[in-house]
């Protein structure tokens, strides 16, 4: 049973990250996902200090709020004349550092392991369950990530066309009256919520892997946005299943293996994708040259 819960958690994290990650990759904001996943740390700690428990909901709200602050600060710095990569770097490292300071200050009083925040430990997921009316309803992580995924799917279902046009042509979107800023912050809010929901199981750093690697792989395989999202989810889920297998084979970190497998799949796609792959492109070029010399 514990194997099932671990793989299910991995697949849910991969699905949630895979969907929002597609929009981040397409907007060339993959590093913003990175930034959010780190800067939510102070949000998590502050929410923990205020609520006094590792209650997921309070943490999720605290972290989501800090996530939006991160995005807002990055944009504000950028608009004030700081280069965009520099402003991302400044904002997330500074906020992350504040989080590290907070953890080190209060770590004696509270049970919040920095290693666990950073790297996560998906192996403990099955034992951290919640009860509803006295009945064990399964691991907390599954519910947390599951709810985040449901939220993502609901918003995507309702506003797919808005998310699409805001990613492709924000100027046009604004001109026809779509509130571009609202959808921008909605997407960033979803990234924050996803990150927080996932951090306990795969860790803040490895969330970035799930946000970027499967979408970047899917981007190489298709030329339709809908399909890219579906592929991204499928690749993420495959990575968690194969990653779990690899981890039990090697007796190594499960989350680490999951992202390593995702990285391997990316490499395969980069080399062998029929449309974008390096090898097929080289072959096509060779054929073209031969054609030209023959004619």
């Amino acid at each position: 049973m514990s194997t099932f819960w671990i793989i299910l958690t991995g697949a849910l994290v991969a699905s949630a990250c895979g969907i929002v990650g597609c929009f981040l990759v397409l907007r060339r904001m993959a590093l913003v996902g990175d930034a959010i996943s780190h800067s939510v740390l102070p949000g998590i700690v502050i929410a923990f200090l205020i609520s006094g428990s590792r209650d997921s909901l309070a943490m999720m709200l605290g972290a989501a709020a800090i996530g939006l602050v991160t995005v807002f600060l990055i944009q504000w710095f950028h608009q004030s004349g700081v280069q965009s990569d520099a402003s991302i770097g400044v904002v997330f490292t500074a906020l992350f550092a504040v989080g590290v300071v907070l953890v080190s200050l209060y770590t004696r009083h509270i049970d919040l392991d920095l290693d666990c925040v950073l790297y996560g430990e998906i192996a403990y997921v099955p034992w951290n369950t919640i009860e509803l009316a006295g009945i064990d309803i399964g691991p907390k992580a599954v519910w947390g990530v599951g709810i985040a995924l449901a939220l993502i799917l609901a918003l995507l279902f309702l506003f797919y066309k808005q998310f699409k046009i805001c990613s492709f042509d924000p100027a046009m979107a604004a001109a026809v009256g779509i509130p571009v800023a609202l959808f921008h912050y909605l997407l960033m809010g979803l990234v924050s919520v996803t990150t927080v929901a996932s951090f306990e199981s795969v860790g803040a750093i490895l969330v970035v892997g799930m946000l970027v690697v499967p979408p970047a792989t899917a981007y190489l395989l298709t030329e339709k946005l809908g399909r890219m999202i579906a592929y991204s989810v499928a690749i993420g889920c495959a990575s968690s299943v194969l990653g779990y297998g690899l981890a039990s084979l090697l007796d190594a970190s499960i989350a680490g293996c999951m992202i390593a497998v995702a990285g391997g799949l990316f490499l395969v796609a980069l080399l062998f994708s029929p449309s974008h792959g390096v090898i097929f492109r080289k072959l096509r070029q060779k054929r073209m040259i031969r054609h030209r010399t023959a004619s």
Partner: protein
Amino acid sequence: MKRANPLSIEDLSVAYQKKPVLRDITFEAPEGKLIGIVGPNGAGKSTLIKAALGLIPRLSGSVAIYGKPYSEQRKLVGYVPQRESVDWDFPTNALDVVMMGRYGHLGWFRRPGTAEKKRAMECLEKVGMADFAGRQISQLSGGQQQRIFLARALAQDANLYFMDEPFVGVDAATEKAIVTLLNELKTQGKTVLVVHHDLATVKEYFDWVMLLNERLISFGPAETTFTADNLQRAYGGKLTMLDHGDRSAILVSGRG
């Protein structure tokens, strides 16, 4: 009562950071004209369009579309942004991009369906791109991409169009297609404002001309506005005129 002009702008000023880009622009665009917006680089031509559409904040001034604020008249306005403003590697095809022209009419929750698809195909046909409907947009040439953008604006079914440099980097066939399309829009009584670079074709393509260089230098019918004097004022002595009888060739020297 006389119907309000398609576009009236009053006392418009725009600044990026500290530097003013447009100062005290006031004009009324008449209905059913093809209007070329001409001026040196950095004169604020694209900025004028973006400020009119509310895409960038204005320092002062007001914009009215058929006598009302833009926010109430969005469905009457079509917009063709500069081609380089979007990522053409985005995973989507030509038909899909053209359908985006319908999104403004669909409101918050409705999805594009068969009616939108049909309209998008008609618009693709009008720009001669029907055969490329299913083509991934990165596989189109620059001229074809520009025509997709025009088709998308047509799908907006507007009365007033803003086009930002549609002629830049396109092949001769596309240039011809655009000109035909502009004239078709004109015969339908629509008004089109086009940011234009090539001084040699201004008189041929447009019936009204706006000369812009931070301030409005001159605005009116091409014959009376597009004169050597006005051009010199707009370009600040960076022009060399070569007179060949009634046709004059114009060279722009230096970078604006």
